[in-house]
């Protein structure tokens, strides 16, 4: 069974429909992350947001980046953040006040920033931009291990440093520091 060339009744191409669906889902889930009252639900919406973004990467013809998005963000960072949420849950459940008192100013700033950025990028002529084309995994691999081999190694060292730093920062202090933990609130 083959799909028709365009979406029935609408006349769009399938990629346009996919882009619209993914863009709506991406912004919707991002808003749920930011606006949700319950922080665990925010974390779960963030996983959905990362998954949608992986879909956008696949639509852009970079399957390797999409796979890395799923592995790194959904597989590692989301789990890390969910664990951190569970470690820092206060007994009284989610805080009554989710936002600062100055959240309205932040909202104005974000709306202005978003419209400004969107206007600027859409009104700019990109002279080098050509036709859309997919990126082959082979080309990425050859670049990664020839031109970009030094950044690749540096990233490896950075990840090692981050692991050591994370363990050092998150490990419990020695018992001699215990009296400090009981300072009056």
């Amino acid at each position, binding site marked *: 069974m083959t799909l028709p060339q365009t979406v029935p009744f609408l006349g769009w191409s399938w990629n346009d429909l996919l882009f619209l669906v993914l863009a709506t889902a991406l912004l919707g889930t991002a808003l749920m992350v930011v606006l949700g009252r319950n922080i665990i639900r925010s974390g779960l919406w963030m996983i959905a947001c990362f998954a949608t973004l992986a879909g956008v990467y696949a639509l852009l013809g970079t399957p390797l980046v999409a796979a890395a998005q799923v592995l790194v963000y959904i597989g590692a960072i989301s789990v890390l953040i969910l664990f951190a949420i569970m470690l820092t849950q206060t007994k009284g459940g989610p805080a009554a006040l989710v936002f600062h008192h100055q*959240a309205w100013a932040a909202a104005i*700033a*974000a709306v202005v920033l978003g419209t400004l950025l969107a206007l600027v990028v859409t009104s700019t002529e*990109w002279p080098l931009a*050509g036709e859309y084309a997919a990126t082959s995994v082979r080309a990425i691999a050859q670049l*990664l291990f020839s031109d970009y081999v030094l950044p690749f190694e540096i990233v490896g060292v950075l990840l090692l440093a981050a692991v050591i730093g994370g363990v*050092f*920062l998150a490990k419990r202090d020695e018992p001699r520091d215990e009296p400090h933990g009981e300072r009056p609130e």
Partner: protein
Amino acid sequence: MSQSLDSYLALSALLFAVGTFGFLARRNAIAMLMSIELMLNAVNLAIVAFGAFVPSLRGDASVIALVVMAVAAAEATVGLAIVIAIYRNRRTPLVDEYTQMRE
């Protein structure tokens, strides 16, 4: 629409703005870190979009996006470790109660 660079860049700009709002407005330190992740993702989307549409950047953009992802993972590790260390000390994840340096 899916064949134009502008639509992807506009999507990336809007995602970045959502992340900015979350970072500025949320009180929970972990929610702020999640907003930073949203902003990093928005930038990554812009990089990959340029890579898909600019022929001279085709492979490079993907490599840079992968590097950004690795740096984001390192940032999340250290950031969350700092948040947990502060939480252990102050017993709250809300940043507006971290007033010790002001007092």
